[in-house]
């Protein structure tokens, strides 16, 4: 059987119909139900999926979640210094907020901008509410893991160094750099998500990348 999870969900036959009550078999059962969700090919989120989500279709929302979850989680993961618990919390908050506001969307471009605005809000608000932006210490030196796969080890080491270089970036630069990389948003989309001008987006990206390069250089000695 296929390892990673995959499930298609029935799309409504007539998406233009008025909102319908959720059919019986799609109700949430009191116990956690393990659902399988299929990956959509390509990056497009079909208007049918969005329409179904707006109508309260839980399974369509699951498809949407599967489409974006890794990118949202990755941004949060690196934003919160590699802390999986904070990243999970943030990801959960993003999709919960999305759940209650999704009926305002009309098309793919607007949706992703809106989604990433939520990501920015959740991440930056959480960072602001913390007393210090202390970087979780990396104790890999104490528990170095020798690997028989030299390439894998090098890749992991490089990723670790980059992550350590990203962590101390000021939050507004950090989020801009991560969003640009993980979702390749246009300047216009980023400006909307970050609620600033495109010029500010360009400035944050330039400065963020430069700071990243300088910190990485210092880490490598």
């Amino acid at each position: 059987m296929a390892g990673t999870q995959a499930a298609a969900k029935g799309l409504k036959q007539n998406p233009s119909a008025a909102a319908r009550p959720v059919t019986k078999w799609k109700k949430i059962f009191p116990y956690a139900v393990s659902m399988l969700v299929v990956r959509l090919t390509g990056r497009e989120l079909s208007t049918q999926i969005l329409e179904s989500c707006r109508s309260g279709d839980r399974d369509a929302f699951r498809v949407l979640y599967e489409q974006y979850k890794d990118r949202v989680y990755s941004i949060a993961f690196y934003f919160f210094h590699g802390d999986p618990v904070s990243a999970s919390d943030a990801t959960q908050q993003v999709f919960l907020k999305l759940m209650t506001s999704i009926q305002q969307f009309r098309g793919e471009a607007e949706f992703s901008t809106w989604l990433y605005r939520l990501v920015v809000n959740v991440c930056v608000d959480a960072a602001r509410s913390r007393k210090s932006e202390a970087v979780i210490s990396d104790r890999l030196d104490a528990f170095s893991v020798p690997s028989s796969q030299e390439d894998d080890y090098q890749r992991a080491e490089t990723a670790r160094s980059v992550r350590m270089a990203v962590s101390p970036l000021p939050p507004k630069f950090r989020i801009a750099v991560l969003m640009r990389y993980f979702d390749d948003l246009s300047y216009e989309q980023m400006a909307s998500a970050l609620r600033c001008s495109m010029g500010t987006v360009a400035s944050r990206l330039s400065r963020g990348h430069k700071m990243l390069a300088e910190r990485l250089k210092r880490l490598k000695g």
Partner: protein
Amino acid sequence: MWEKHIAMHLMAYLNGELPPRKAREVESHLEVCEACRTEREKIRAGMDAIRRLPLVAAPDSIWPSIAAEFGRRQPRPAAVVHWRWVLAAAVLITLMSSTAYWWLHRPLGTEWGVVRIDGSPSIGAKPLVGAGHVRAGEWIETDAHSQALVQVGEIGSVQVAPNTRVRVVTAQQDEHRLALARGEIHASISAPPKLFFVDTASGTAVDLGCEYSLIAADDGSSLLRVIRGWVSFEWKEIDSLVPAGATCRTRPHLGPGIPYFDDASAKLKQAADAFGLEKSGDTTLNVILSASRVRDTLTLWHLLARVDPPDRNRVYDHLASVSPPPAGVTREMVLKLDAAALQRWRDDLAWKW
């Protein structure tokens, strides 16, 4: 001022996003401005660095909490024109009377949702396009290139692998039953026990709350592998308890075999699978006894009821030496296959599985 423009455009330039004319202007400036070239290299180094960060998969643990909230926080449907509500109400009233008639005369059981995952699965003889429903009595069939996902009422789902033929026997709230003729299914059920059953030619998997895969071969034999929870595999008077991490094979006319843990030795697993098939059970029994670990008391316990009385003594002695029966369970009771005594011993042994 020109430097400021260059700084603003460097990111877009490095990403190839500038219009051609602007890109040429930036290139021309870079040829004569060392400071801007240095800026460009710093930004480029940062961009190269960030590309080394791998995408991190979101943990599976996030979705359930979102799903739980979904039931509480249904988004409000978009506002609609008033006249549509009037029309909808009229349609609803008309439908109610016919629905009432249908409800009174409906066939037993309801229907489950089915979704195509891959290829062209069929329900009945009709190909499934996208999503559909399956009713009690209908077959779901997949070929070598197709797969489907069945939503089993409100208690879980079953993934139907390629080359599989499975029928919905009962689709009711108090009984969800499938019949697997051939192929493989992967069931993930989250419900109180004994609501979900899968019949095969050589036994019925009774779900006690779990996740498992079940493969049925054309000759009527099956292989059950439990991933989470535990399953009881039943046929006539024979019953095998298969916990997480264990496998049990069934044979036509013989029912469920002896379960074993997947990390048992190859010798033990082969012997357990072969047990009961050969004329004399001595060979396989000897192998099982000699190859068993503490954890393999799962296998040993099941042997008690499957061997002849002389061999039962041997199995008892071996099992008791590994894990003595609890107080109140005597040798005599076990050799007589006292059900309560066997159950108590099994409950005690389970702490070693």
